[in-house]
């Protein structure tokens, strides 16, 4: 690593200052940021939302959002100050010397164009005289380079026909088209499952090692940094808090903020193997067909829950798609007053279970009993008995609140809808509830955009609580939040459930979070239960290969 540092830097950022010029004056977004990126180096910029890390990435690419200006400092690449270049030369750099990878693989590609055509147009834009056949050959070679299976056939695929990981590979291939020397990767793996994330990081690492590329890696995820970054810049509120080599920084963080950031990351415990007979009967040795503990102390009993997709839709008319199972024979016992975790990768059906149990979607089951009373899940609506009794907290608090309602309006609506009698004490009841959840009276009359992510999620929890549920379902409630906020919300959820005598189903892809909060865990894969047991069993003793695979996919430093 020291040899890399000794070379002259490829890119040098000195005292970079970026301000946003709005109607109410200019606000600094990034202040006096300096760092350098050497050849063949991976530099991580880490920070929570609002730290200005993405804005730095945009400045390097030369695509600052409207209203944002560079007012000071310089970005030099090979000694040339980029801000002195005119628009045309700047564009020539983009896709050429400086390529970029964005976070959201679902929207980085034009949905109406084949991936081959999108790769091809990039290649053609960089070398316009290339014959078509040659463009195609290069595109196929690039697809092969990033590990797309059957690249020649995939060339004609549209983005929606690829998996998330494959799409992100295509994005990387596109970035490689101009043989760049720097890739600016803005949260390249945040939208991907842990196992896919690992593959993508491996691809990026391979590029650095083979081609001597440099990567400016912008992320909020310490795990990603730990996996591939050589050096780290920690940012907070637009300024650099601390920088240094990754190993040193993780071992021995100097700044309090870095230390908090590191300690807030949920960590997986795997050592304390407890040999008590605390396993639900039949769960071990018989994965996939797991039987559950007796229904005595279960508030919610689910037997053989299944859901098919493509049932009546026109998909089947054309015979292009056979009916598939979104869920198949799922058996769940939610212990009264307990927390059941459902983990799995995207597409495993974990969210579908939550939505069916909340009465938002239909399904089929041999038996669904809430408090010993049978519920009907074959149609949506109030009659089934689940809706209202089961409340949900969704992943993205920003999109689950109506932007035109204030907090009190949104909560009143919910109290009214579920009130047994029309009492006018709703405001005081709401105030009491949100105070318990760590908000203040003053927040009542604010609109969602005036609240932070964590505050919005608190409002969502309040909304679920005010409906007076027996069961709370939290579907990835912290995935859209910063790590430090994530920890707060998790402990809040835990307390709330205990205080109000609720039971909770906690759906997440993050094993560490699940281990932290859940008594029992159910591992889903392709719509089936793959593994089921107490938290200690799943994380300590389960020999199910899929469970092990999920646990192993986590970055090593976060397993203690």
């Amino acid at each position, binding site marked *: 690593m020291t040899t890399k540092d000794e070379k002259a830097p490829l890119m040098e950022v000195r005292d970079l200052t970026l301000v946003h010029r709005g109607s109410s004056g200019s606000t600094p977004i990034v202040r006096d940021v300096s760092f350098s990126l050497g050849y063949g180096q991976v530099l991580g910029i880490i920070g929570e939302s609002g730290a200005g890390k993405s804005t730095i990435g945009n400045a390097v*690419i030369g*695509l600052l959002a409207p209203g944002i200006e560079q007012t000071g400092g310089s970005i030099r690449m090979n000694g040339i100050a980029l801000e002195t270049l005119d628009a045309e030369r700047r*564009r*020539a*750099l*983009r*896709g*050429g010397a400086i*390529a*970029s990878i*964005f976070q*959201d693989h679902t*929207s*980085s*590609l*034009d*949905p*109406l*164009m*084949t991936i081959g055509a999108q790769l091809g*147009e*990039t290649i053609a*834009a*960089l070398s316009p005289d290339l014959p078509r056949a040659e463009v195609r050959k290069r595109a196929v070679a690039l697809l092969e380079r990033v590990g797309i299976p059957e690249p020649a056939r995939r060339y004609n695929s*549209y983005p*929606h*026909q690829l998996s998330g990981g494959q799409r992100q590979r295509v*994005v990387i291939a*596109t*970035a490689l*088209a*101009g043989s760049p020397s720097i890739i600016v990767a803005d949260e390249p793996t945040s939208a991907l499952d842990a196992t896919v994330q690992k593959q993508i990081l491996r691809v990026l690492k391979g590029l650095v090692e083979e081609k001597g590329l440099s990567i400016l890696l912008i992320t909020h995820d310490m795990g990603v940094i730990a996996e591939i970054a050589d050096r780290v810049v920690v940012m907070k509120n637009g300024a650099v808090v601390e920088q240094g080599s990754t190993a040193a920084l993780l071992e021995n963080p100097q700044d309090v903020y870095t230390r908090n950031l590191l300690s807030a990351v949920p960590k997986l415990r795997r050592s304390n193997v407890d040999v008590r007979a605390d396993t639900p009967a039949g769960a071990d040795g018989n994965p996939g067909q797991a039987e559950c503990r007796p229904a005595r102390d279960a508030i919610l009993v689910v037997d053989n829950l299944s859901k098919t997709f493509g049932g009546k839709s*026109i*998909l089947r*008319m*054309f*015979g*292009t*798609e056979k009916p598939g199972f979104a869920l198949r024979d799922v058996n769940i016992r939610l212990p009264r007053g307990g927390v059941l975790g459902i983990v799995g990768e995207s597409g495993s059906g974990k969210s579908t279970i939550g939505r069916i149990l909340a009465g938002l979607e239909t399904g089929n089951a041999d038996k669904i009993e809430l408090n010993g009373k049978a519920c009907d899940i074959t149609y949506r609506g109030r009659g089934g008995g689940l809706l209202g009794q089961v409340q949900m907290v969704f992943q993205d608090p920003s999109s689950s609140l109506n932007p035109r309602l204030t907090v009190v309006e949104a909560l009143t609506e919910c109290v009214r809808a579920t009130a047994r009698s029309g009492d006018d004490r709703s405001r005081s009841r709401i105030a009491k509830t949100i105070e318990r959840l760590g908000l203040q009276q003053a927040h009542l009359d604010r609109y969602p955009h005036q609240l932070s992510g964590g505050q919005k999620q608190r409002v969502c929890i309040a909304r679920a609580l005010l409906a007076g549920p027996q069961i709370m379902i939290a579907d990835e409630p912290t995935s859209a939040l910063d790590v430090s906020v994530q920890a707060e919300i998790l402990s809040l959820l835990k307390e709330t459930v205990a205080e109000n005598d609720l039971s909770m189903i906690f759906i997440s892809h993050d094993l560490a979070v699940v281990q932290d909060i859940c008594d029992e865990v159910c591992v889903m894969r392709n719509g089936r239960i793959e593994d089921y047991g107490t938290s200690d069993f799943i994380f300590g003793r389960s020999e199910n290969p899929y469970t092990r695979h999920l646990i192993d996919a986590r970055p090593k430093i976060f397993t203690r």
Partner: protein
Amino acid sequence: MALFKVISGRLYQAFLLLVVMSLIGFVGIHSVGNPVYNIVNIETATPDDIRRATELLGLDQPLWRQYLVFVQNLATGSFGTSYIYHLPAFELVLSKLSATIELAAFAILIAAAAGTGLGLLAGTRPGTLVDRMVVIVTVYALSVPSFWLSMMLVLFGAVMTGWFPSGGRGSTVDLFGWEWSFLTADGLKHLVLPVLALAIPNIALIARLARAGTVEVQRADFVRFCLAKGLSDRHILFRHTLPNISLPIVTIVGLQFGGMLAFAMVVESIFAWPGVGKLLIDSIQLLDRPVVMATLTFVAITFVALNAIVDLLYAVLDPRVRISA
């Protein structure tokens, strides 16, 4: 098998539409008045003449029986004979078709091209003077009533400047058994004003649609990614933005084209353009039931066919529709 199901579904839909339209048309015309008085010469006809004419046309029968007779005739492919022109009704409609098609086709082509162009122009520069101009002008163009717009066009384009004729089709050329105006210079001149009258509101409509779509697509991540790939603005605009905004535009173009083919009666009347719309309004006034029924049937078929074409275009334009539906 699946395709068969789709087609049969469409045909069933068309059939239902036809039944409903024919019922409405039948009852509607019946309740307006007795067509006999438009057919016989009121001044010379004796009560006996009128009675004979009534019997001859079957108008003495109860309405439901008249409808059954109409359906029976329809089964043999006949809409009956026009009371006024004494020509087979459907042939009469078809004879007006060329005038309507050339008018509507020119109008929609101009509207689609100009509207999309203006929308892209405005949508890529949101908040600028150009954008605000487009937004404001299109509101006016949309809110102006069709007859007023037509009369202003006559006033400026014909009366004051004398550049264009104010009505009629001008000289026509016979092609495929139909008369066409656009093949002669004189006919083209006659086309200009009515085409503008039909196109202007649609330019505005499509421009607003295209602008909204463009603003949205320009913000999309893939456009930013295209910029980051080093593509030129022009390339992004035509290869990425345009296809992505085209779906709603295609829908509106299809609907509006159908509307022009069937219901351009205001413009056709003002410019004395002998098209289907004018035929329909004239026939309704004269209570010429066979012609009204034939026109309505034509309208229904047109709309069903255009909808099918729009759906097909969806599949061509959007691979997600193509593969999953």
